[in-house]
C-alpha cells in the first residue's frame, strides 16, 4: 500500500490533467494552476524557513568530523570537517550542498562469520543522489530557453554539452537519461533493500513517482509525440509577462507535464523536499567549532536552582573539619 498509494496518486494527477484538457480547461491547467503553484511554492518555502528560523540555536553543536583546531600549531586541524572559522564553515557547507560530503562517507556494514564486522565502501547512494540532483538542476536551467525571448549563450553551451553524444534527432540529452536512471535507482533501493524498504513511507515514494512522471512526460514531448513548441513558448512567455495566453494546438502531454510540475511545486513546501532549505539551517553543519574560544549565547538561558557551596559546607562542615579540609565558616 505504501508504494501503490503514491503511485495511484501520480496516475490520478495525470488522468486529471488529461481529462481536463479534453474538457477544454486549458486556461485552468495552463494559467490558473501554474500561477497558484508558483505562489504556493514561494510563500510556502518562505514560511517554512521562517518557522525554522523563529526557533533559536541555543547551543553550538557542530558534529566535529576531524581534528579540531588545536592549541598546538604542530597538530594539523581538519579545517573543513571540523571548521573553526566562517571560511571553514562556508567550505564545509559548500561541500555538503554541492557534492554531498557526508553521504560520500557512506559505508555498508556486513556481519561475517567469525564474527567479523566489515565496513565496505558504499558509494551508490551518494552517486545516485548526486546524479539525480545535478541532472535535475541542469534540466531545470535548460528550460530557461522557454522562459526567455533570446536563448542566452550559457544555456546554448549547456545544451550542446548535454547533447555532445550527438545521438538521434532531436539530439539526446544526457541529463534526461541520467535523471530517469537515478530516480529509478532511488526507487528500486527502497523496494529491494530491506532496511530502506522498512523505513520508507508513502511520502518517500510519492515525490519519486511524481518526478519520474515529470521526466517521462518531458521526454515523451521532446523525442516522441512532439509538441507545438512555438505555442509552448508563447504560453510560457505569456505567464512570465503576466499577460497569459492559451495558444491553440499544444498537445495534452504538455498540460500533463505542466500539471505534474505544478503538483511538485505545491507539494514541495509541505514535504520532506524542504531538505533543500533545511540543510542550510542544520546546526550540526553550519556552525564553527569555536565554543571554547568564543562564548555562544543562548537567548533563553535562565537562572537555575543550584546547590551552592555554602549549602554543601553546611551539610558536611563537621566531616570536612575532621578530615582537615578548610572551611569558610568555623
Amino acid at each position, binding site marked *: 500500500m505504501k508504494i501503490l498509494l503514491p503511485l495511484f496518486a501520480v496516475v490520478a494527477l495525470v488522468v486529471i490533467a488529461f481529462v481536463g484538457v479534453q474538457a477544454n480547461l486549458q486556461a485552468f491547467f495552463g494559467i490558473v494552476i501554474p500561477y497558484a503553484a508558483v505562489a504556493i511554492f514561494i510563500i510556502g518555502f518562505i514560511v517554512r524557513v521562517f518557522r525554522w528560523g523563529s526557533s533559536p540555536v541555543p547551543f553550538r*553543536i557542530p558534529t566535529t568530523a576531524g581534528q579540531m583546531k588545536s592549541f598546538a600549531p604542530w597538530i594539523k586541524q581538519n579545517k573543513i570537517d571540523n571548521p573553526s572559522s566562517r571560511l571553514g564553515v562556508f567550505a564545509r557547507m559548500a561541500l555538503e550542498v554541492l557534492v554531498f560530503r557526508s553521504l560520500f562517507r557512506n559505508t555498508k556494514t556486513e556481519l561475517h562469520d567469525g564474527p567479523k564486522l566489515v565496513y565496505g565502501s558504499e558509494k551508490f547512494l551518494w552517486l545516485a543522489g548526486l546524479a539525480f540532483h545535478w541532472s535535475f538542476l541542469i534540466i531545470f536551467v535548460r528550460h530557461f530557453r522557454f522562459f526567455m525571448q533570446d536563448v542566452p549563450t550559457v544555456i546554448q553551451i549547456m545544451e550542446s554539452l548535454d547533447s555532445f553524444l550527438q545521438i538521434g534527432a532531436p539530439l539526446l540529452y544526457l541529463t534526461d537519461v541520467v535523471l530517469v536512471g537515478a530516480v529509478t535507482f532511488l526507487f528500486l533501493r527502497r523496494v529491494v533493500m530491506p532496511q530502506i524498504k522498512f523505513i520508507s513511507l508513502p511520502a518517500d515514494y510519492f515525490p519519486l513517482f511524481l518526478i519520474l512522471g515529470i521526466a517521462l512526460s518531458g521526454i515523451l514531448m521532446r523525442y516522441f509525440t512532439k509538441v507545438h513548441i512555438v505555442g509552448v513558448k508563447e504560453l510560457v512567455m505569456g505567464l512570465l509577462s503576466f499577460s497569459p495566453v492559451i495558444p491553440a494546438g499544444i498537445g495534452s502531454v504538455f498540460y500533463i507535464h505542466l500539471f505534474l510540475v505544478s503538483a511538485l511545486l505545491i507539494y514541495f513546501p509541505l514535504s520532506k523536499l524542504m531538505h533543500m532549505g533545511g540543510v542550510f539551517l542544520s546546526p550540526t553543519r553550519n556552525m564553527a567549532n569555536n565554543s571554547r574560544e568564543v562564548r555562544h549565547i543562548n537567548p533563553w538561558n535562565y537562572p537555575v536552582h543550584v546547590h551552592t557551596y555554602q549549602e554543601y559546607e553546611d551539610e558536611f562542615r563537621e566531616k570536612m573539619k575532621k578530615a582537615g579540609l578548610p572551611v569558610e565558616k568555623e
Partner: protein
Amino acid sequence: MAKVTTPKPAELVTSIDLKPSAQQWMDIPTEIKPGTFCWGAKAKNLNIVEFPNARDWNPSEEDWKLPENWQEIFLTGMKNLLDKYRSFKVFMDICVRCGACADKCHFFIGSGDPKNMPVLRAELLRSVYRRYFTTSGKMLGKTAGARDLTIDVLKELWYYFYQCTECRRCSLFCPYGIDTAEITIMGRELMNQLGLNTDWISGPVANCYMKGNHLGLEPHAIMNSIEGMIDDIETITGIRINPSFNRKGAEILFVTPSGDLFADPGTFTCMGYLMLFHELGLDYTWSTYASEGGNFGFFTSNEMAKRLNSKIYAEAKRLGVKYIIGGECGHMWRVLTQYMDTWNGPADFLEVPVSPITGTRFDTSRSTKMIHITEFTADLIKNGKLKLDPSRNDDLIVTYHDSCNTSRGMGLLDEPRYIIRNVCNHFHEMPENTIREQTFCCGSGTGLNASENMELRMRGGFPRANAVKFVKDRHGVNMLANICAIDRATLSASMDYWVPGVRVTGVHEMVANALIMKGEKERETNLRGEPLPGKEGN
C-alpha cells in the same frame, strides 16, 4: 527483581539479523525485554532535585503510574522544545529517509532491531510530531506517517530513547547532519517531565547535586580514596605525594570524573594524574564540592545538566584559581566544549590557561578557561619537559579507542595519540571506519552503564569490541587505551565478554608508568602492581 541472564557471545551473534522483516514498523509491537532496559527511577532521587512526577515505578510492569494528563504534558513539552531548539524543529522536518544512517548505529549492528536504526528511532518521535504538529499528519494520519500518542507509543519511545547513547555517529553520515543525539536528548527531556527517568541516571544526578559527584562520595571519602592511591604510589615509586583539597589561591583547579576515584582501572589513571602533577610541582587543587567532571544531568534535562555543571565555575571562583584542567572523560568534554560556557559563563574571573611549565598559552580555550589534560600533557612532551621511559610499557600492545564525545563533539583526536606514541613502543590503530570521527561507542554511554541491561550493553559494545578483536588477532593487542571514565568501566566488561585477554587503560596511567620521577626508587612494578617488563623474575 529477578536476575537477568545475558546470552553467551556466540548466541548473541547468531541472533543478529541486519535485514528487517517486510512488516510495517508501526504494526510491530514493542516488547520491553529483560536485559535491555534499566530500572525506573526512585521517587526519593527525583525529589532531591525537584523533578516532576516522582514515584517508584517499574518498566516491566503494565502500569507505569503515569499522571492522568500525561499526553498533555508530553505534547506541551514537545511544543516548548520545538520553540526552543531549531535543531529539533529542523530535524523533525527534513529527513528524507535515505537510510545512510541505518547501519551506522552500534545498537542496530549489535541487535538487528530495526527500531534501532537511527532514522527509525527518530521516526518513532517524528510520527507523533506529524500527528500533532503538521497539517498533513493531522489530516492524513498513517498515510502521512503519523500516529496517535498512545500509552504503547509512549512506552516504545521510552524503550528506544534509552537504547541510544547519543554518540552522534549517525549524524556524521547524514547528508543534513540530523543528529539522533539531539532527538534522544529531547526525547529524554520529555520522559523526564513524566518522571520516566532511570534509576541508574537519577541516582547519580541526586548524588552529584547534593554531594558533588555521581558516586556520592562525601568529602572525607574522596580524600580517603586519594590517600589510598598515594600509598600505592609510594610503594611503587618511593615518593610520597601530598595533594591539596579545596585550597584557596591555587593556580589551577583540577576536575575529573568521580569514576576515576572509585574503581579499577580508573583509579590507575587517577594515580597517573597525581604523579604527573607532583613531578611538575604544579600549583593545583582538588575540590570536594566540584568533584565531578561528568554530567549525568545531561541525560535527564538541559536544566539539570546546567545545575550540575554550575559547580565547576562556582568553585573555581570561590577558590580564586586562574584556570581549570579537566581529566579524561567523554561526555564531560562534550558538555564542557559545547554547553558549559553558554550555560554558566562567562568565566571572566578566570584567566586564559597558560602552562606554568612550558609557557604555552591555550588560546583555543580562551573563553571556557578549561583545558583537557591531554592538551596539557601533549604540550609538556612536545617541549621535552617530561623524562619518559616508554620501555616500561613494553608489555603493552596498545590500541586507542576514541570516545564518541571527544571525537564528534569536540575533535580531540591527535593530542591523545601524540601522548600514547611517546609513552609506549607498541601502538596499533584499529580499522579506519572504527576510529577518530567514525569511532564506535563503548555501548554503555549516556547512563546506560547499569548491570540490569547487560545484554543491551554487550550488543551495543559489539562493533567496538569487534574492531579490538581485529587488532588483537593481527598485532596481539592486549591493552585498549582511552580517555573516558565510562569507557574504562564499560569497555572492561565488554572486553571480558567479547575479547577476553584485552585490558583497558586510561592514557595517563601509561604516562605515569613511563614517567621518570625525580628521586624515585628503581621501579619494580607498574601502577597495577604487576612486574615491569624485565623485572618479572624479581
